[in-house]
């Protein structure tokens, strides 16, 4: 088979054996939980090794849940669960919300408005290196609130790279710029529900339990935090890579074949306004998310070809993650894990801090979405009657796993420029991760103590 090396086959067999072994060793658990544990272990293994694309693993886990916990459960002496339990998550409202965000980003990108915005700001940054670095990180973070972190980093690195190559090889300023961009992209994603898929997973899992977090509520929790963490990251970057360069400017003279500015910006701002004011009009965020597609399609700015180019793999990944979460919850496996993983009487903030550090750690080595899918279903079970703080905090901390080139796509893109070494990324990334988790846990604790009613429940 094309692309199937011996290593991948052996890893695949190892994954299956681990899953079978888990089933055999967990004989004390009810049959449903044993089956779910096996599927969970296989999924985690496949996500860590990435021998198949991570979205395929997500679909595979939903398929195995529906097969083995559905009618197949009778073979293991368990009551079957309905297959719809594992397929309904693929139509969860957060999938629609993310889809709306993808459409907005697609139309922005197709009309070169993303580059135009980027260049507009860059041209006004002057020539002080620290201002340029802060400006670049700021633009990156703001763009990645609404666009994919990957695309934002690609635009920014492509823009900055020619000027960075003009610096002395290995210069600190080059390193600061090429690390500041991916880190700002990772951090920017925390500010909005559509900023990065782990946010959507958290919202989806909360919605399954009847808790609704509005777009506005998420931004209250995420946006100020994003600003603070970004400024800290800038400070750490600047301190770690002190430069003697006194002047640095970017030549921004790209011609943008931009078009349809009026309708795209109007639709964008109208959509964001509707998202932020749902407490007034009570139109759910997912319904608002369809407005851009409808407007752009009628205006001829979003075609069938654009629809095909939407990142369906990411949506499937989120859907599969929610399906896995549903399986872990319905079989009671989450409660069992919680019993063993966390000692009773452990302080609530301690548990949140523990999970936050844990997810940042595992997200360093694997996909953020996969990490969120593994940890958040357990976290939501642990958080009892007030899961809002736990889920938002832990989901945000997923974005802080960024110490390695493989940690996130933005890191991989910046590293691929060959302007930074992995040890530079590790030194700064590990420090930023630790500081950001501490700041985030403290911020969320403060926020939910000051505004206990902030998390609107339904």
């Amino acid at each position, binding site marked *: 088979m094309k692309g199937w090396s011996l290593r991948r086959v052996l890893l695949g067999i190892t994954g299956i054996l681990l899953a079978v072994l888990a089933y055999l060793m967990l004989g004390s658990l009810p049959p449903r939980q044993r089956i779910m544990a096996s599927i969970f272990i296989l999924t985690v293994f496949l996500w860590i090794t990435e021998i198949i694309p991570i979205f395929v693993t997500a679909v595979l886990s939903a398929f195995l849940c529906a097969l083995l916990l559905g009618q197949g459960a009778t073979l293991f002496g368990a009551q079957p669960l309905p297959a719809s339990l594992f397929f309904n998550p693929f139509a969860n409202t957060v999938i629609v919300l993310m889809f709306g965000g993808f459409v907005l980003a697609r139309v922005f990108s197709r009309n070169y408005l993303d580059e135009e915005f980027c260049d507009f700001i860059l041209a006004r940054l002057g020539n002080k290196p620290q201002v340029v670095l802060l400006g670049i990180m700021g633009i990156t973070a703001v763009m990645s609130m609404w666009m994919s972190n990957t695309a934002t980093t690609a*635009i920014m690195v492509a823009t900055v790279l020619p000027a960075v190559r003009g610096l002395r090889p290995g210069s600190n300023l080059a390193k600061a710029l090429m690390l500041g961009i991916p880190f700002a992209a990772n951090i920017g994603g925390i500010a909005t529900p559509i900023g990065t898929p782990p946010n959507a997973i958290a919202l989806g899992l909360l919605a399954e339990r009847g808790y609704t977090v509005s777009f506005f509520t998420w931004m209250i929790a995420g946006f100020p935090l994003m600003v603070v963490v970004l400024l800290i990251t800038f400070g750490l970057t600047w301190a770690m890579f002190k430069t003697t360069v006194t002047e640095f400017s970017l030549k921004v003279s790209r011609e943008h074949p931009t078009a349809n500015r009026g309708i795209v910006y109007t639709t964008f701002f109208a959509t964001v306004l509707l998202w932020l004011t749902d407490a007034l009009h009570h139109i759910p965020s997912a319904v608002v998310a369809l407005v851009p597609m409808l407007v752009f399609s009628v205006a001829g700015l979003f075609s069938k070809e654009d629809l095909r180019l939407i990142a369906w793999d990411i949506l499937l990944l989120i859907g599969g993650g929610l399906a896995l979460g549903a399986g872990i919850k319905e079989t009671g496996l989450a409660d069992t894990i919680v019993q063993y993983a966390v000692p009773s009487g452990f302080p609530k903030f301690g548990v949140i801090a523990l999970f936050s550090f844990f997810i940042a750690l595992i997200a360093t080595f694997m996909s953020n979405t996969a990490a969120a899918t593994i940890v958040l279903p357990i976290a939501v079970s642990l958080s009892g009657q007030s899961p809002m703080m736990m889920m938002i905090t832990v989901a945000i901390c997923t974005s802080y796993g960024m110490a390695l080139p493989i940690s996130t796509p933005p890191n991989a893109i910046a590293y691929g420029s060959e302007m930074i070494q992995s040890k530079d990324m590790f030194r700064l990334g590990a420090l930023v991760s630790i500081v950001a988790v501490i700041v985030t846990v403290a911020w969320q604790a403060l926020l939910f103590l000051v505004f206990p009613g902030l998390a609107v429940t339904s």
Partner: protein
Amino acid sequence: MSLCGSSKREHCMKCESVAMLNYVMVKPGCDTEVFVECATCGAFVARYTLTTYTSEDPYRSYLRLMRKKRSDSGAATRQAGQKFVTEVWEGYRQAKDLVADSEEVDHLEEILDRTE
């Protein structure tokens, strides 16, 4: 690595020159088109419709492609970037080797027809 496929230098059907001028037309929302003109006699030679474009700096071209993409795996993104750059340089070398090894007898359209 063994060479496969075909390769040829674009040439003018009127004067046989291989010196060409490219006019690249970019329109928002449309595929980019390249109109090729003979630099010697000024005749229209061909039109290419681009799906992707790679410059002399393949990694920057890869970044241009990633501008419209989403990814959720750092490892896969890194591999894709490395593969893209390698394939560009490898393809360029192969194309030159194929031209050097074969007689350029076919019109480019005939080569393209055979690959459909």
